[in-house]
């Protein structure tokens, strides 16, 4: 099954007179259960592409279809709804809400999608266990190490059982050990739940886990291990 399908997508940033073709005519299909790495030099468009797939941004031209749903022309609220149910995010910086505990951060997307009390508690406990953070449930982000924060972020991304998780350089701020640990967790969850993972990364440690590697340059796909 296709979780994401991009057809001839471009994204042009315009700052004054300068136009940057951050994504320049990409056609791409991501299948359920993939563990895909987006690689390429800095400025090649990895983040931009992830934002387009994640419906955080809209293409200048072309089509983005998520879980069979055409996203062009969706309102801000409709896109928020789509993200809430279908897409989880993990960012390079450990993007937790600083005022909420690990537990509450993971609970947040469940609250947003209106899950009942009992189900929520059960799901958060399950996730804390999945990422091995049960004993730190009541810690605030500033009381957690980078690796621990990133594991909480992964748990939060998984909370609503999204079809697809997008991660932008998830290991860039982690040391080798923590990076490996986070990747192991994601890999395991990918296998257990068939959730699709897409990473933007420079990190060879991440690339070695990938089942598919897509190389970008100047906003174009120059190599796709699956099609090669």
């Amino acid at each position, binding site marked *: 099954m296709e979780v994401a399908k991009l057809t001839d997508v471009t994204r042009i940033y315009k700052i004054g007179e300068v136009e940057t073709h951050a994504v320049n005519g990409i056609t791409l299909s991501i299948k359920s259960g993939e563990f895909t790495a987006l690689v390429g030099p800095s400025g090649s468009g990895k983040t931009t592409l992830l934002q387009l797939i994640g419906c955080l941004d809209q293409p200048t031209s072309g089509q983005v279809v998520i879980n069979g749903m055409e996203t062009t022309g969706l309102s801000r609220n409709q896109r928020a709804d789509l993200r*809430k149910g279908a897409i989880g995010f993990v960012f390079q910086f450990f993007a937790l809400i600083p005022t909420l505990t690990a537990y*509450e951060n993971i609970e*947040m997307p469940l609250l947003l999608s209106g899950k009942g009390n009992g189900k929520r508690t059960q799901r958060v406990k399950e996730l804390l266990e999945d990422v091995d953070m049960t004993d730190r449930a009541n810690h605030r982000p500033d009381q957690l190490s980078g690796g621990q924060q990133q594991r909480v972020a992964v748990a939060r991304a998984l909370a609503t059982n999204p079809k697809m998780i997008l991660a932008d350089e998830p290991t860039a701020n982690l040391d080798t050990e923590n990076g490996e640990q986070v990747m192991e967790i994601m890999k395991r969850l990918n296998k257990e739940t068939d959730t699709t993972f897409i990473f933007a990364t420079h990190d060879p440690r991440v690339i070695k886990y990938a089942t598919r590697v897509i190389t970008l340059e100047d906003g174009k796909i120059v190599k796709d291990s699956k099609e090669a």
Partner: protein
Amino acid sequence: MMNYFKMAYRNLGRNRRRSLLSALALSIGLALMLFIASFYEGEMRSSMESTLRLDSGHLQIRAADYDPDKLSVAWEYLIENPGQVAEQAAKLNQVDVATPRLIASGIVAVGDQSAGVEIMGIDPASSASDPYRRLTSGQFLTTDDREGILIGYPLADSLGLKAGDQLNLLVNTSNGTVDEQFFTVRGIFTTGTTTYDKGIVLLPLSKAQAFSGAENRASIIFVLLKDREQAGALAAALESSNYQVETWKDLNEILVLMEDFSNAYLLILNLIVVGVTATVIVNTLVMSVFERTREIGILTAIGMKGRQISALFLTEASILALGGIAFGLLLGWGLSAYFGRVGIYFGDLGMTGFLIGDRIYTYLTLSDSLYLTVMTLIITLFASLYPARLASRMEPVEALHGSD
């Protein structure tokens, strides 16, 4: 969503000092407004009270030709048979008390010192004379006292008079000449209003009538009503070709005008204070929106809608506003309660057109408190819509771009 409150509360706690300071700004603003309102209310009450009780009454019945500025006791200006007129007026249901008064001009002389005064003949037995019964020394007049006079404390002070002392009083009589007589100071009164007390001396009505040659006549019938709002209706009913009837509103145009004016003035002042304090709150929230760009991005990325993000910031604003208002209410209430008991001393302001007590006692009304509190809350929340909207419009993309 219940988490709004928790998140909002903790966010405020993240920058505790700033949150406290901006809530405090609101508290001080509200306390200030409450205090000003209570001060004005106290002042208006005091001046209305003093002016009506001492000077104008609620109604005055006068001869058709009476001219209050002349203080003349020429017969054409006076009411005939004032006792009867007063008695009839007093029979009316709405009337609390009606009493004839004679007002003449004169000069008090002691040794080589003298002072121009208003000589008022009053009925010592009438309850309308109660404001003069507060004596610093001596005793009050009796109806048939022929040699006694009551003078105000500031006049006694400036002329060096004590109870029991003698003074020489000159009066402009009804036939246009001057008469004089020695009187004994029976007592020295204080109404609490120096401006008034320094310019008036009191005689029993009958003595004043005899002394000034007014015979059985009076300048006015001084009427106090049970409810002063009835004055207009009653005046219309009493008006006749022989008499003019003036209400306290006619008699105190300046005061009535001043009340309207000060209400408008207060409103402007309040809007300025609320404007400034709301700006402080909005500023705090705007800063916090910009500081939390990334956080807003994350929340948007995980599916929070603009509306929900607005709600989050509005919740913060509400907590700040409610906290600040609660404390401000306490502060303002405390201030007004304190100065309502102790009073604020101004002394003789020497204003003309209305009388005011030397000490103003603040008076905070429930309606003022409610109105100011609700206005502050509404304006603060309304102003907070701006940062809330700012937050909800933020693009989620920015969150992904951040790195630290």
